[in-house]
């Protein structure tokens, strides 16, 4: 049988999917064991047990100085910034994309500006944000907004433009005004597109969040990683990276699930990632 026709069973597919993870963990454990055989105090590749102990310390033992459980306070602080930034960016993107997608006049007005703005490397805005907004929460949330809103706006506006012109014409022959076309045809169609845009925006959002926290913060997942870097505390950094990845994955899956629940009509044909 040709390889392209060889489809794994469900059990095989799960096993195959797990294999690269197992290899990565195994390779790490081996490398760690080799280095620690050389030097029992090696800090670069701590043992899995040491990592587990460090995680337990971060998650379940109150910090000496503040009395906080650091993993959870860090997670809460980061998710709050991320959520706020994404929410603002999504609201901005929705309004701009609706205007750009629906009104040719607004398209002429905003489209070139959004395209140009989206090419500014957001991290270069960070010093400006720190100067203008101070070192507090606003600057970090602001960076997430600046880093994601243009991308989300463009993705969403393209989605609105992809609504077949036939539907817009048909709505007019049924007597719809511009506002009615917006509220009954375009806005509902933007729902699932917005969730896709948010999932798209979350990738740079995490980058900018961690960057901002690394530079100026007193808590947060990015702050912690860059803080303990000074002590080469790989036993904290590695599980934090894994934890951030797990969070990102869970949020992405949750949004995909939400889309299928809220907008069943958008998932009737074709496969979507």
């Amino acid at each position, binding site marked *: 049988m040709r390889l392209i026709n060889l489809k794994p069973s469900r059990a095989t597919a799960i096993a195959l999917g797990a294999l690269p993870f197992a290899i990565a963990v195994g390779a790490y454990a081996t490398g760690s064991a080799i280095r620690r055989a050389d030097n029992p105090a090696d800090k670069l590749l701590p043992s899995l047990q040491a990592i587990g102990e460090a995680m337990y310390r971060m998650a379940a033992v109150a910090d000496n100085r503040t009395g906080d459980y650091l993993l959870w306070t860090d997670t809460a602080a980061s998710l709050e910034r991320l959520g706020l930034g994404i929410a603002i960016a999504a609201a901005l993107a929705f309004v701009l994309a609706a205007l750009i997608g629906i009104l040719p006049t607004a398209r002429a007005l905003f489209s070139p500006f959004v395209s140009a703005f989206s090419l500014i490397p957001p991290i270069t805005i960070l010093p400006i944000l720190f100067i203008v907004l101070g070192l507090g929460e606003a600057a970090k949330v602001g960076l997430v907004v600046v880093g994601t809103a243009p991308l989300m706006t463009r993705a969403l506006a393209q989605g609105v433009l992809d609504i077949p012109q*036939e539907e817009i*014409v*048909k709505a*007019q*022959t*049924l007597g719809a*005004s511009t506002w009615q076309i917006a509220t009954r045809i375009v806005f509902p169609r933007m729902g699932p597109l917005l969730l896709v845009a948010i999932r798209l925006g979350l990738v740079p959002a995490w980058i900018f969040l961690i960057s901002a926290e690394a530079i100026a913060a007193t808590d947060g997942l990015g702050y912690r990683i860059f803080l303990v870097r000074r002590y080469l505390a790989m036993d904290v950094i590695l599980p934090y990276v894994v934890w951030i990845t797990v969070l990102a994955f869970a949020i992405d899956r949750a949004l995909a699930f939400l889309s299928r629940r809220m907008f069943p*009509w958008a998932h*009737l044909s074709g496969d979507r990632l």
Partner: protein
Amino acid sequence: MRFLDARKISVTYGDAPILERVNLGVDEGSFVTIVGASGCGKSTFLRLLLGQETPTSGEISIDGAVIAPEPDPGRGVVFQKYSVFPHLTVHQNLMLPFEFDGSRFLARLFGRRRREAADMAERMMDKIGLAHASERYPAQLSGGMQQRLAIGQALLKRPRILLLDEPFGALDPGTRKDMQAMLLDLWTETGMTVFMVTHDIQEAFDLGTRLIVFDKIRHDPQFPAAYGATITYDLPLKTREGWTTDENTVAAIAALNNKDTTHDA
């Protein structure tokens, strides 16, 4: 004066002429079928009637008034695809015209007016045979059911003119026959004027009271886009009494049957 009057219409996209010197007068209640090769401007002509495009020169009037340069409820339309709203169920699709009408800001009806609209939507659902599929989304309907929904939705506003752009082009032959019968019933019942673009010359003969053929009169083999198309045949097919016996028409139909006007169909 004719019900619909198109005078000296021409359409040019950039340098390329699409339609040249099109003149057409149509009586109310006609069923006009339009055929022609791909790219000969028949769909463009339909978009002009719809108001989706405006002619480069010339004008179209209905009842003596020049048509607005944008679509309106006086002219219903059904396209080959994308004629219904995929995010609304069959029932919601059929409620939509009443909701546009009755609620300027929210486009949603409540209470008694909602029930009245729902009654009318349900009557239309029975008429187009979709009562059993009321809560389904268009993606869950077959191609024929989707087009039945599209036609039913277009008729809710009781347009005086119905424009059809290859509405049955994507349907299998059996379904197409059923749809043609349904369309003729609705046309007889409403007395509206129908313009239907089709690739299928048999369909054009069977349905139309009048057949119009778009073609290019002049050809430049070195530069096929040099000239636009115009109406080359305009044949009255039927009267109230039945098929026409006009000699010229009969001869022209014979000629058309021999010469395949739909080169790619």
